[in-house]
């Protein structure tokens, strides 16, 4: 079989595996009525499998590659839906902007500031050991 066909089959099979994990996550969440996103449960299942295998199977890696590197385009339908909700958002535009812009700028600095202190404290305790 030519190499590109082998690769295409491998990629399709990898994608199929991801579909299976996703649907498995949804089925688990819904049948156990867990308050978690189904996709998150699928993600954790796959993560546990990788930790158990101690490596990433090439099939899954090649199936995941296009989804991971072009995930951006998958958000387009959702983002466009904002046109439908404009009326509900408009009255709160100022607070939404404040929430997003000010809180993000402050949180960035504050998080980094705290992180520095945590690392220093950890280093300090290591020296005392």
């Amino acid at each position: 079989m030519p190499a590109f066909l082998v690769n295409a089959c491998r990629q399709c099979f990898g994608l199929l595996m991801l579909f299976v994990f996703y649907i498995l996550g949804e089925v688990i969440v819904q049948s156990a009525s867990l308050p978690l996103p189904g996709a998150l449960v699928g993600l954790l299942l796959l993560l546990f499998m990788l930790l158990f295998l101690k490596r990433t199977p090439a099939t899954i890696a090649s199936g995941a590659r296009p989804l991971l590197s072009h995930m951006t385009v998958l958000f387009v339908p959702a983002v466009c839906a904002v046109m439908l909700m404009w009326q509900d958002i408009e009255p709160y535009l100022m607070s939404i902007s404040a929430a997003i812009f000010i809180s993000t700028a402050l949180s960035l600095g504050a998080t980094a500031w705290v992180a520095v202190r945590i690392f220093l404290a950890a280093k300090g305790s290591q020296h005392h050991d």
Partner: protein
Amino acid sequence: MIDILTQEINGLWMVLKDSATLPGVVWLSVTLTIYALAIKINRLAGNNPLLHPLVITAVGVMLLAVVTGTAIDDYQQHAGLLHWLLGPATVALALPMYAQWQKVRELGWQLVLAIAVGGIIAPVLAWLCLFVVDAPLALQMTMLAKSITTPLAMETSRVIGGVPELAAVFVIITGIAGAIAAPLSFRLFQVADRQAQGIALGSVAHAVGTAKALSMGEDVAAMASLGLCLNGIMTAIVLPLVFS
């Protein structure tokens, strides 16, 4: 259990059927074409966060929908395959997370703690802004998920009573704002430590922040993707447990 399985597979089948119609094929190809152009434009603009490919593609699709008189509901149905693929794409995030696992074990509790701090400060500050003006609960809930990576944010906001579509918009704007504000913010708080900067960028501004971190250096980006991964999982587990 079998019911849910058939229902899920049926859902996928409907999505595939919608994609195989003429409008489905046309709108899917249009979206992918605009996206390909958007990547080129973003690259030409030196990866400027304001010209993020998602912004260009979404604006382009919205304009085309208005010009052609297509209702956005219809567009969403025609391009439903893209939306459905978000599920498997979220699952695929396990791969980069697994790749970072060794690092998490090396750095230990202080890393988890630092990321958790970012994961708590950002949503609480944002939520306060909406809480004080008494915004609708759905809006407040949506804002809580804004700092984590888009697919997890959408799903998490749905579980806690927010609006997934709005979450996607909040998340992307947060990322853009974070990438632009980062240098100023770090100067203001006088943080020069590169590891700390990376953790803040990843845990507060997710993937767009991580892209910004990459332009600051590989070491900053490594910490940022740790922040993105860990905070994404922590927030997606904690928020639903607290609010539902």
